Structures are given as structure tokens and as C-alpha cells.
């Protein structure tokens, strides 16, 4: 019996901006059903990796998702394959209402009934959004925008969510709430690749992690091992 191939398989991924090499050949794997976290200091290259995976940024190396080589697949087709990227800063369209933000994410879908049912489902999951359906996205609080960003990604029926610092700028209570929801989403079968600076929170819900330093993987392993690794503790877990 051979194990199932990983849902996402990244080999020697490199991203350059002009002469700046932001990501210098990293490899990682995410298996179906996992929560994997990608940690690292500011400028380590975390967002660049996610942008490469979702097709926003050109890259070198190979990326396989669900058996498909993603080289030269445009970003909008990658969404259709089942990968959704919740970008850094949430990427809410400020003068579209909450409802319109959700609807836009169903561009690739044509199953009216399924869309309606999924809208109800995500609104049940994020009741605060239900109360604000007709409000412009730009008027939501940071936490509400983060919820909308996750809700929107769910509307595309993604198998894999790429989340770029969902805890950024949120109060500890809200971070716990959002991480709880992420865990729940994962239990329902969605795989998560979670970029975080909040290593404590991230390692709590992830099964494995990668630690990035200046565009390279410095450490990787099971969450428990990373949490007890003195080097990781010193750099990312506050001693």
C-alpha cells in the first residue's frame, strides 16, 4: 500500500523580485486533512510563498496540487482547482457589500442552489456577517473583515485554504475565536496551510510546521517537536 500523494507538494520553490531573492528554494508538503503552519519573521518570505502557490506571483521550482502541475496555471484557474488564498490584509473589497464580497467568490460556480446553501452555511458559521450583509466591506472591523475573508474563501468550495496571518491585528479573544473556527472548518475536511507570526497559536492547532528564515526552511517537524525545540522557543515562542 503506497500512501496517498500529498494534496500540495512544493519542491525547490524560488521567488525573486528583480534582483532580490525573496524565497530561495523551499520544499514542503501538505497532506489532505492536515493543518500545516508556516512561520517566520517579517520579510522571511511567507507571503511570497503563498502568492506563488495561488498563482499571483511567478516562481521557479515545482508546485503540484491535487495531482496537477501548477506551473503556468493562471490564478483564477487555480481557484477552480480547489485552492483558495486568504491574502495578507484580508483583501476585502471595501465598496462591495458583505453579500457582494461573498457572491464574487462564487464566480467559478454555477450551481444556484448550492451557492444559496453554502451562503447560509457560512453565515451560520459567522453570524456577525449575517447582521451586516448589506454593509460595505470597508466598514467592517478588522475581525469581521477576517471572518468575511475566510467566509469568502469557503464560498469557492476550496479543498485547501492558504491563510496569510489571520491573527494579524486582532485581540487575543478574537484570535482564539477565529482559530476555533479554522479548526472546525478543518474537521469538516478542508486542509489548511496557515502562515503565522503568532507561533504559539499556530502550533497549537497545526499538526506540523515549517519555520522560515530569509527565504529558506530553517526547521520543520511535528508541532510538538517544534514547540520543545530550544532554538524555535528562543526565536519564536518568547523563550
Amino acid at each position: 500500500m503506497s500512501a496517498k500523494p500529498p494534496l500540495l507538494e512544493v519542491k525547490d520553490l524560488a521567488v525573486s523580485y528583480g534582483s532580490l531573492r525573496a524565497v530561495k528554494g523551499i520544499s514542503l508538503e501538505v497532506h489532505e486533512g492536515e493543518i500545516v503552519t508556516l512561520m517566520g519573521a517579517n520579510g522571511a518570505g511567507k507571503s511570497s510563498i503563498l502568492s506563488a502557490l495561488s498563482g499571483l506571483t511567478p516562481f521557479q521550482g515545482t508546485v503540484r496540487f491535487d495531482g496537477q502541475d501548477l506551473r503556468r496555471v493562471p490564478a483564477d484557474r487555480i481557484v477552480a482547482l480547489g485552492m483558495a488564498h486568504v491574502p495578507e490584509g484580508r483583501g476585502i473589497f471595501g465598496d462591495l457589500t458583505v453579500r457582494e464580497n461573498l457572491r464574487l467568490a462564487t464566480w467559478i460556480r454555477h450551481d444556484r442552489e448550492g451557492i444559496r446553501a453554502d451562503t447560509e452555511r457560512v453565515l451560520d458559521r459567522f453570524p456577525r456577517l449575517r447582521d451586516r450583509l448589506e454593509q460595505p466591506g470597508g466598514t467592517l472591523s478588522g475581525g469581521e473583515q477576517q471572518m468575511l475573508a475566510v467566509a469568502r474563501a469557503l464560498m469557492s468550495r476550496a479543498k485547501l485554504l492558504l491563510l496569510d496571518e489571520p491573527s494579524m491585528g486582532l485581540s487575543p479573544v478574537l484570535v482564539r475565536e477565529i482559530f476555533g473556527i479554522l479548526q472546525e472548518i478543518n474537521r469538516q475536511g478542508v486542509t489548511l496551510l496557515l502562515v503565522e507570526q503568532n507561533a504559539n497559536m499556530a502550533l497549537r492547532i497545526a499538526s506540523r510546521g515549517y519555520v522560515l528564515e530569509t527565504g529558506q526552511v530553517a526547521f520543520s517537524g511535528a508541532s510538538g517537536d517544534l514547540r520543545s525545540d530550544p532554538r524555535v522557543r528562543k526565536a519564536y515562542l518568547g523563550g
Partner: protein
Amino acid sequence: MVYFLQQTLNALQLGSLYALIALGYTMVYGILRLINFAHGDLFMVGAFAAFGIAAWLGWPFVPTLLLSMAAVAALGVLIERLAYKPLRQAPKMSAVITALGVGIFLEHLMLVFNPYPRHMPELMPVHLWTVGRLSLSSHQVLIIGLSLVLMLILDWVVMRTKLGLAMRAIAWNGRIVPLMGVPVNRVISATFAMGAALGAAAGTLYAMAYPVIDPYMGVLVGWKAFIAAVVGGIGNVRGAVLGGFILAGVEIGVAAFLPTTYRDFISFGLLLVLLVVRPHGLLGRPRLEKV
């Protein structure tokens, strides 16, 4: 009073045409932050397309209008693909200058085939109704009515359809729109097609109302429609319509009281003052900065 009503009708007719053209400027600007200075010339090509279809094929109004709109829509898309798309990452000024160049190219291409002004054949008979001393022509009704219908359709597309959502999302933050599964290039093409088609409709109607057409007809009208779009708040669809009617109202108002040679001087002066007071235009607003 009758005089006032008569002038109002004239202003509504002219305003409808300005508004239709202004929409093309504002849509393209909204989505690409590009001032498509070739747009006035698309209006001109629309008039000539209608002329060609009517003169050589002898088609009646409706198919003439539709074919002119379709042909110019295709031209608009082609121009975007060939001339603007390669410059999308270049400084905005390069694309703006390219647009000016495309406009001059279109004018002179038309000049090759039409060295003299053309007289537009009648696409449909004109009825004239008079109520007291007020006279209303069927062309006026057609122009105002059809423009209104087209504007309502456009407003519906922009505000209610997924395509419209995508256009507004690109206007807000185009970089991440692909993450929604939206093929941005196709949305941009659709935007150019719609703007160009509206310009061609304006060209066709304009040629019916003012039946002598020449390859430079789009220059001044284009500038005026562009200014109407700016006055309304460029990037804002309803603003473009409002700006078109305001500009026409001011022009006709000025011409009613002063020699026509003063018209453009005074109306543009007034608009400049308005822009000093409201730099983002009437319905434009400085955007709520995104987080």
C-alpha cells in the same frame, strides 16, 4: 417658459450623448486607472460605421445601431489587447500617451477613406410634434429615450451582475481579484467592449441628430465627455451621467444668453471652478483607505 422648455429638451438630448460617451471614459478609468483618450474617436468610428451600414447596406435604424455597436465594441477590445495591455505594468503616462496616439491613428485612418465630410442618410423618418410653440422631434425622443435605456442597462450590469461585481472589485484592488476565480483580462475586455459600444451608440445617434460627420468629430465631443466624466467623479458610473447632463445644461444655458463663441469658454470655466470646489467630482469620493 416655452423657450425654457425648448432649451431643456435640447440640453437633455445633448446631455444624453455626452453621458453615453462619458460612461466609456469612466468605466475604463475605474477599472484600469487609464484615461482612454482614444474613446472620443471610437465615438467617431461609431458614427462612420453607422454611416457605412446605412449608405452601403441600406439597413434600417435598429440593425444599423446594433452592428455599429458590435463593430466598435470589437475595435475597443482589440485596441486594449494590442495597445494598452502590453503597457499594464508600465508607468500610467505611457498608456495615456499611447491612447492619444491610437486616437490620432483612428482619425487619420478614417481621413484616408473620408477626406470630405459625409452626409448621414436618414435612418428613419423624422416626425415633428408641436404643442403650442414647443416643438419636439421624434429624433429627440429617440435619443433621450434610448440613451436612458442603455444607461439603465449599464447601471444594472454594474450594480447587479457578477460581471459588475468583478468590475467594481478590480477598481478597488485588482491585484487580488484573480483569487476570487475571476479572469481579470476577460473582465477588462468586457469593460472596453461595453464602453466602446455605448460610444458607438452615441456616435450613431449623434449622426442622426447632426447629420454631417467628419473624422475629427470625436475630438471636441470626446474632450467634453471626458470633462463630464471628471465633473461627475471619474470612475463613478452615475457620476458620468450626471456630469453629461450638467455639462449640456451649462452649454445650452450659456448659449441661450450669450454669443455662441463664449459657450465653451464659459462652460469650461464653470466646470473648472466646480472642480476646485469638489476635486473628486460630484459623486466621486476619496476612497476609504483599505486596511
